[in-house]
């Protein structure tokens, strides 16, 4: 019995690195390589959330240090199979992946968007829009322009300036905040009523920032990716 348990433990340890190779997502924008500022990430997040709300197309922007030992094509399709951006059945997801140390990038286009964003267009965006900025070291501007180009290709009515305003998310925040406050006061009430030993001040104040942050995130409209399918469309390039 003990041997079996040890065996299972060992197996889990072996299996773990395989999972660690493909990180989980925390939003539309996942800056695993830490090359983007928080402000930029938030801005891009809002833009992609607004686009998702309008078109249901889900676009994930990912930076990683390296895709080694895989090729960028292999890594991106595996990540796409794991995350599944886009809606199930519509397969309208896109992953824009930037491998910073490898100086390689790829736009992986979901099956349902292959007609709107062809391989040629993807390659064109990578080569002529993103690459010059990346070569100059302007990663944020390159990604921003690239995302705009992708959004315009999918939805010609999309304009970069309109997306800059984040009107839609703020409205949501208000609702999210109200819900949060109700829940918060219920919890506080609970604490006061049922635990005579808990000093009120410390516990309550301590709870605010963390719950606040998570509540705000979920009300941005990101409820996880929807199960879109990929079959290898898109383009790759390097800089």
């Amino acid at each position, binding site marked *: 019995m003990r041997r079996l348990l040890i065996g299972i433990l060992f197996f889990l340890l072996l299996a773990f690195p395989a999972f660690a190779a493909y990180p989980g997502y925390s939003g539309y924008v996942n800056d695993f390589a830490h090359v983007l500022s928080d402000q930029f990430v938030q801005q891009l997040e809002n833009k992609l959330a607004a686009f998702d709300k309008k078109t249901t197309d889900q676009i994930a922007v990912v930076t990683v240090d390296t895709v080694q030992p895989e090729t960028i094509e292999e890594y991106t399709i595996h990540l796409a199979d794991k995350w599944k951006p886009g809606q199930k059945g519509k397969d309208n997801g896109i992953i824009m992946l930037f491998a910073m140390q490898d100086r390689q990038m790829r736009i992986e286009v979901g099956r349902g968007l292959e007609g709107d964003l062809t*391989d*040629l267009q993807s390659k064109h965006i990578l080569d002529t829009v993103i690459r010059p900025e990346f070569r100059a070291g302007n990663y944020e501007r390159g990604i921003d322009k690239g995302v705009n180009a992708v959004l315009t290709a999918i939805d010609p009515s999309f304009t970069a300036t309109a997306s800059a305003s984040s009107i839609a998310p703020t409205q949501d925040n208000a609702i999210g905040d109200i819900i949060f406050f109700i829940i918060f006061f219920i919890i506080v009430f609970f604490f006061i009523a049922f635990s005579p030993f808990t000093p009120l001040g410390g516990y309550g104040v301590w709870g605010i920032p963390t719950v606040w942050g998570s509540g705000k995130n979920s009300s941005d409209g990101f409820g996880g990716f929807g199960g879109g399918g*990929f079959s*290898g469309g898109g383009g790759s390039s390097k800089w």
Partner: protein
Amino acid sequence: MKNILIVLGVIFFIGFLIFSFFGGTYNSLVAEKVAVQTQQAQVETQLQRRFDLVPNLVASVKGAQIQEQKVFEDIANARTHYAGVASGTPEKIQAANQFESALGRLLVIVENYPQLQSTQTVQDLMTQLEGAENRISVARQRYNESVQIYNQHVQTFPTNFIAGMFGFQPLPLFTTTTPEAKNAPKVEFEK
């Protein structure tokens, strides 16, 4: 009388168990085989996509007055050969690989002629070809995964008895025979 009823009940029960075992296994084998066939159709769709691109590339190369008759012939032959063999057989996979090696040689020619490579048409064709290649490799990988599940099921105990009875054969994996296909292409910086 009571004993007979009990015996009958036990027989029915065992009969039911055997029936559900056979039925369940048979059905799951069929489901897995259908999954393999779907993936195989997927691979062939993507291969077809590449086939349709290649004549354009050949035309561009010919248009640039490059005399490489041997490669043009090989591509044409491989293409007819592929169309001639039944799908879902090892021969089909072989034919696809044969076409691949001919295509590889055509691409080497394209690389060796800078004036050819610099034209926008050829650039676009190469990009589309890259996309086709990538789709093929994704479809192939998924085909192999579904074949793996099916083959494992067909060959392991006790399913192998039922598989043998109903004629479920192990299916071939889609492996590439060309050695260069296994290595990622080298990154060459322009001088």
